[in-house]
């Protein structure tokens, strides 16, 4: 494995009595697309702010591009692109001007910035909005502009904190497409998300985080293989009959997960399990066979759903 661009060992962040990040270990290889998946409040954003060399860790070790962020914050940040959870574009400036002033923060010459700004506006599909006010952009456009801004210094590592939260499905797909292109160009991506489909789409490897700790690590496919079955059968019997039906379902599938509104049957073959259920004389109101997702992995690991 080539020298990692990010190395964290027992990385921790404490706010008074509250432990936001509780001793996590991970490495990110150059060119890799690495994700932190977990519910709100899991410590993902705090981790990102430490990796972004703005928030000082309270314990453990952290190296970014081989440097300690405590001593080399500005140097490290010169090589990062940051897309925060909440857009912090300057609403008092126009679209293109946001890129121009931001490029200056990296000490880049004006000519270089102007050239890159135009290319990035193309990339972000905002070339025709160059003179627009930031306030007049849609949520998806603001996110794309924030990503364009994060790329003005041609970063080694792009950090994205919940990049598509709050966007409609179409805007999300446009954004995923742009991020996928960056990944193809070899940019190292580190992103947090609580959307499993996003993690599956974008991440080569991810860690599942809950309550400041890492619960599991691996590629999306490997995590699903390890912590879930190939398929999931979802059956509903009506909310008052679920528990009763669940008792009669014991022994069916590899594992059962009884949720308030439905029962999940983990199995290599969902259709076959459904047949066995009907043979038992049980008639679910609805049934659905699907492939296992990271949501199932998370449920297995924590006993809770990702989106609560």
């Amino acid at each position, binding site marked *: 494995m080539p020298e990692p661009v990010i190395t964290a060992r027992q990385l921790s962040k404490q706010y008074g009595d509250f432990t936001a990040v509780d001793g996590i270990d991970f490495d990110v290889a150059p060119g890799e697309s690495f994700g932190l998946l977990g519910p709100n409040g899991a410590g993902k954003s705090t981790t990102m702010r430490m990796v972004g060399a703005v928030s000082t860790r309270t314990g453990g070790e952290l190296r970014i591009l081989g440097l300690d962020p405590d001593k*080399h914050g500005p140097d490290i940040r010169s090589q990062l692109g940051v897309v925060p959870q909440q857009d912090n574009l300057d609403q008092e400036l126009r679209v293109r001007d946001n890129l121009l002033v931001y490029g200056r923060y990296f000490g880049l010459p004006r000519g270089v910035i102007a050239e890159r700004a135009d290319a990035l506006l193309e990339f972000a599909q905002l070339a025709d909005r160059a003179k627009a006010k930031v306030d007049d952009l849609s949520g998806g456009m603001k996110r794309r502009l924030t990503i364009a801004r994060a790329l003005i210094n041609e970063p080694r590592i792009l950090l994205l904190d919940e990049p598509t939260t709050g966007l409609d499905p179409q805007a999300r797909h446009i954004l995923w497409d742009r991020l996928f292109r960056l990944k193809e160009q070899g940019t190292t991506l580190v992103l947090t998300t609580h959307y499993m489909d996003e993690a599956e789409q974008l991440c080569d490897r991810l860690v599942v985080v809950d309550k400041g700790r890492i619960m599991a690590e691996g590629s999306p496919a490997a995590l699903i293989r390890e912590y879930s079955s190939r398929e999931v059968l979802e059956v509903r019997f009506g909310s008052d009959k679920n528990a009763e039906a669940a008792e009669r379902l014991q022994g069916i599938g590899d594992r059962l997960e009884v949720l308030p509104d439905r029962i999940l049957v983990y199995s290599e073959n969902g259709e076959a399990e459904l047949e066995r259920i009907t043979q038992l004389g049980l008639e679910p109101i609805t049934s659905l066979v699907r492939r296992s997702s990271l949501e199932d992995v998370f449920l297995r690991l924590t006993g809770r759903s990702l989106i609560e």
Partner: protein
Amino acid sequence: MTALDPTSSGAPSDLSAGALSEDARRALAGGAAPRRFGAWYVAEHRIRAMRGYLQSAIVTSIGNPLVYLFALGIGLASLVPQGVGEVSYLVFVAPALLATAAVTVAADETTYPMLAGFKWNPVFFGMNASPVTGTQISAGIMIAITVRLLATVAIYFAVMLLFGAVPLATGVLAIPVAVATGLAVGGLIGAYASRIEDDRGQLPMLMRFGVTPMFLFSGTFFPLETLPPWLQWIGWISPLWHGSELGRVVSYGYDEPAWLTAVHVVYLAVLIVVGLRLVATAFTRRLNK
């Protein structure tokens, strides 16, 4: 784990050229210019943002002195035909009005714009994600405010000249004196504003019960000595009084003991330094959560 061994991570050893990766070397090169010029980049950004209200800023910069010098220097002055001390009321009041204008602009720029940068238009977090540090961001903002103060005060001074309100050539020094007065107040207000987490109307309160009374009790419109002694202390701690008196010394040679002039200079300088430090710590703390 050698790379992470805390004993091997001391600054000199992990900076020895041979041990550094290509990435680390590029990072150190990339951080060099922002480490030196970060504050100026921020100032450039803020001045660009000020262009948004350039027109109204110019109109007020010219209109404000016209209105005040007419109303007080000519209007109110007709009630004070004997002038104040050796000089006409216009000459007496003008340097203080100049300092007051600087304080008003400084208060404008250090209240809501400071809080907004953390809350409603959280650009400071965006800046801090780049190599620029919290201290540099606060310094850059204060530089931009100084530029605006300088422009406002210079225009004001030009209008004062038109009114014939500046008898001495040293009067031009009233410009830096007024800018310094504005910065002394602005630094303190900025340090307070950038610490506000929840906006519960603290800033309007500060303006109404802090800044406005300062205008009234700082010897602006009448000499401080005419106030009852138990109110004069407000003037002594008020940067505006020190700035106004200093302005009078340079503008018309107001006769005060040399030690008192020195006190004005030192007091304003100390407030500026303390204010800037407080703003810098407030920024660093808030950005480094």
